[in-house]
């Protein structure tokens, strides 16, 4: 019988492998949907190639991209889950093991010595954001963050009196400046909050949402409006022109300080990789069917 620590480590290892070799089902549906509507022949061809690449990667178990990202986790720990510190150690062990097996490329470099740690572990690596909740489960989201996307992230401190109005300008400016670098079509994530840390964390949470039709709320309508504007820029898939520059734009908000309106703008390439698992205190494992599937 395996210990709970071993169960967590194996489950995370599996989640890492799935995340880097296939996109979630909703992401695949988004790409297909935009491919059907794309009017530029070259862009249509690129989107078809992306769809084919997704199928090949899943079939052959190879990474979707050579950059398997900086290992990033959002971990929600139930107050009655018994092995809290153990769980975090198990995640770190799973990352090192995934690197050893060649599932993850070593992507953690010491900024002082410029040496790659070679294991995807080290100071603050993997990056783990922790939340607590009332419950007896351990919920883990693995979101590998590629260097191309992360390198074009932006942080804006907007005037509070014109926050929403200036946001539109900031988003479009960010997308234009990013150009082809985040491998469009992208997902654009916007976090709004009182502090830079808060806005950044909220933008990161956008990755957890699923692609779907926007509801009729003012915020969702703004998301749709900004997405439509981005898709008039003509940057297109891989920056080679076309209607499909972004697949989705998501905004997460928190209360702002009276004197601040801080917006963090982050990108994901078309391969928005994520895997979501829930581990019960009895060692049972739930795999999110949106992430664990075969295209």
């Amino acid at each position, binding site marked *: 019988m395996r210990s709970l620590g071993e169960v967590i480590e194996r489950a995370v290892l599996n989640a890492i492998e799935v995340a880097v070799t296939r996109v979630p089902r909703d992401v695949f549906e988004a790409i297909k949907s935009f491919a059907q509507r794309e009017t530029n022949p070259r862009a249509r061809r690129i989107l078809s190639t992306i769809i084919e690449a997704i199928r090949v990667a899943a079939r052959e178990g190879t990474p979707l991209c050579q950059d398997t990202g900086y290992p990033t986790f959002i971990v929600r720990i139930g107050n009655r889950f018994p092995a809290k510190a153990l769980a975090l150690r198990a995640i770190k062990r799973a990352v090192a093991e995934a690197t050893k097996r060649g599932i993850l490329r070593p992507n953690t470099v010491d900024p002082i010595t410029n040496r790659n740690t070679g294991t995807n572990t080290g100071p603050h690596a993997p990056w783990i954001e922790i939340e607590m909740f009332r419950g007896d489960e351990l919920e883990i989201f693995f979101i590998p963050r590629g260097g191309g996307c992360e390198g074009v992230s932006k942080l804006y401190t907007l005037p*509070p*009196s014109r926050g*929403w109005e200036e946001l539109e300008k900031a988003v479009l400016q960010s997308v234009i400046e990013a150009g082809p670098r985040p491998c469009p079509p992208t997902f654009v994530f916007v976090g709004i909050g009182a502090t830079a840390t808060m806005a950044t964390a909220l933008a990161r949470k956008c990755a957890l949402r699923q692609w779907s039709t926007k509801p009729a709320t*003012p915020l969702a309508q703004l998301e749709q409006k900004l997405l439509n504007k981005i898709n008039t820029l003509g940057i297109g898939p891989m920056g080679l022109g076309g209607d499909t520059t972004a697949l989705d734009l998501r905004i997460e908000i928190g209360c702002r300080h*009276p004197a601040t309106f801080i917006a963090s703008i982050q990108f994901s390439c078309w391969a928005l990789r994520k895997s979501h698992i829930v581990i019960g205190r009895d060692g049972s494992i739930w795999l999110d069917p949106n992430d664990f599937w075969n295209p």
Partner: protein
Amino acid sequence: MVRIEVVDESGNLRVPLALLYALLRRGARLCGRSLEVDPSAVQQLASGLSPEDMVPEVEFCPSGEPQPIDLDPDDVLSQVCTDVYRYFPGDESSRCAACAIKVYSTLGETWLVSEEQLVKILEVAREENLPIEWNKGNVVYTTCPPDYRDAQNYPPGSYREGLEKLRKAARRLLEVLQ
């Protein structure tokens, strides 16, 4: 009742502030991007606005981006204004000050103040002789002269006196807005 669209989808005002003020004083109701107005009120205004309907207005200052001013949280301005600015670059050379009061949300297409509060906001501008402009859903009180070029005649640093003038108006508004 007739509906008059007063704000466009980007949050810009489509009518002069004086007309907005005149219609509100004649019982118009705020309704999304529009005003609901009794036709008789429109007829009354057909011959033009009276001096009582006028509010002092100013065009946006061309001195570049306004510089935000950080205020003490206890300052009455920070309790009333969404943003406080000074105009003309350089702390010492700045001439004018401004206070932005958010009254309309472009995102929600809703008014953040009641008709009575908006009338009061515009009334204070009249009575305190503070020229105002509409900027992205904000009523912005400024201490700039209506013709911004005259601001060059103000001595450098005179925005500080302007802040005092704005504080006086803010004290009156605090009671209305709370």
